[in-house]
């Protein structure tokens, strides 16, 4: 019954686009979770919504607005550093404001109601050739960037003070990383929608982290990419079979995988290190 799956051009595009996005979201998300910045990543996608709707308003391709705005916001967030990136309230506000602004932009373009749904919840079957190429290009750039900063990034994520003392430009690394998160987020938003970016960026990464703790960071990142890929593909197949939205299936699969990972090792309350000192 799956035989007809690849007889449609849009289906092939959807698979290729999901592949390009998942292979990036997996490893970038892994580091995002390691740095406990997943909420920041979530907010970035919402800023992307403002960018996309703003671009539509200006007659530009929404993907450009999406990429441009998330990148800008990511770099800004990195520059503001801990003052913003670690603050739930500030991030939550940015998130809400972005959605509000996006809504306002859409209001001027009532004809784009379906576009709003596509932006918010994704439209993987609507990916055309140029979009696919853009996504692949974005993915390559992001992965190359991650490979270029991986070592100091991981060191600074695990042991910021030690890394700083050893000469790692901690601030620069964190700005660059949020830039990469922004690019990865923009890609994810194209597939699964800005509201559900968490599903591809964070869920596979968190699952991988639970499963691969003993095996090292490299294995964890690879596993995270593999999970994102399988969940993405699985979502497409199930959507094809059921005619339900692919985004729903991807969230369901990633939630199920995370749930299974939780079962594998009983959940313990996280032990906080003793003497939690306020940042200098």
């Amino acid at each position, binding site marked *: 019954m799956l035989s007809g799956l690849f007889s449609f051009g849009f289906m092939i595009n959807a698979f290729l686009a999901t592949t390009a996005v998942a292979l990036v979201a997996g490893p970038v998300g892994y580091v995002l979770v*390691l740095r406990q910045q997943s909420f920041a990543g979530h907010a970035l996608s919402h800023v992307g919504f403002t960018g996309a709707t703003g671009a539509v308003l200006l007659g530009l391709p929404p993907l450009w607005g999406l990429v441009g705005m998330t990148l800008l916001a990511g770099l800004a967030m990195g520059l503001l550093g801990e003052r913003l990136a670690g603050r739930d309230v500030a991030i939550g506000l940015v998130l809400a404001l972005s959605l509000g602004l996006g809504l306002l932009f859409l209001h001027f373009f009532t004809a784009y109601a379906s576009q709003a749904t596509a932006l918010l919840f994704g439209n993987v079957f609507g990916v055309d050739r140029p979009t696919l190429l853009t996504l692949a290009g974005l993915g390559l750039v992001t992965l190359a960037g991650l*490979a*270029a*900063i*991986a*070592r*100091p990034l*991981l*060191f*600074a994520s*695990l*042991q*910021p*003070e*030690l*890394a*700083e*003392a*050893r*000469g*790692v430009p901690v601030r620069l690394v964190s700005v660059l990383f949020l830039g990469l998160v922004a690019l990865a987020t923009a890609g994810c938003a194209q597939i699964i929608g800005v509201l559900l970016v968490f599903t591809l960026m964070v869920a596979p990464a968190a699952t991988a*982290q*639970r499963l691969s*703790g*003993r*095996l*090292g*960071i*490299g294995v*964890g990142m690879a596993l995270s990419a593999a999970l994102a890929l399988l969940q993405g593909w699985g979502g497409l197949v199930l959507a094809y079979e059921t005619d339900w939205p692919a985004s729903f299936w991807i969230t369901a699969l990633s939630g199920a995988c995370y749930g299974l990972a939780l079962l594998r090792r009983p959940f*313990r309350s*996280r*032990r*906080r*290190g*003793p*003497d*939690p*000192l306020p940042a*200098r």
Partner: protein
Amino acid sequence: MTDAVLFDGVRLEHPGGRVVLSGVDLRIPAGAFVGLLGANGAGKTTLMRAILGLLPPRAGSIALFGRRAARGSNLVGYMPQMRAALSVSLSGRALVSAAVNGRRWGTALPVASRRREVDRVLELVGAEALASRPLDELSGGERQRLLLAQCLIGDPRLLLLDEPLNSLDPSRQAELVALVRRLQREHGITVLFSAHELNPLLGALDQVLYLAGGHAALGSVDSVVTSETLSRLYGAPIEVIRSGGRIFVLPGAPGLERAA
């Protein structure tokens, strides 16, 4: 032999303008085990950050082994004061190996030289078995040993250990002090070891560096930890009681009843 650490008229200020230490002159000889003591906020961490080159002195100069202290020096190993971080489900080995050439751009590949360096430091602290377990399952003392291994990466000649005894029970404290003492002896490493309590360190110390009231006093335990020196340092009466091989530092005027 050059001194491991040389402070010459050093004044340390935080960016906000808060003066933490001023007019500090000290010479820590290479190979010494120095206990760094002082109350909360006395400036222990600040002093270490200055030695690391992260907080350049406002006045005076700091030299390490005859060279001006600068950020990113390979001569110095650092174990930061424990923060709430590190409760990740990642193996100890992954944590330790993140520090190997950690400042170099690019991606760290699992090459043999990297593995050897990690094995070497794990063996130094006897943490080979711990290294395969997830960090968030380790006890405080076990984690501390891994962090010690991590700061030995690159074979530093000076170790700055910021309150490594926090949250350890007395026997683990003694173990860790003995371990650091052994490393210091066998490898000729200079150690600056900060703590709130003097007693766990007593058997290991060559010298004690006391911080109080913006000033510092360095010397043997017998010369520094006295009612006279500490009262001068704090600018307030301090009582020092020696009893059964242990030393108690108490606020209060000498001559008051010794009930504590």
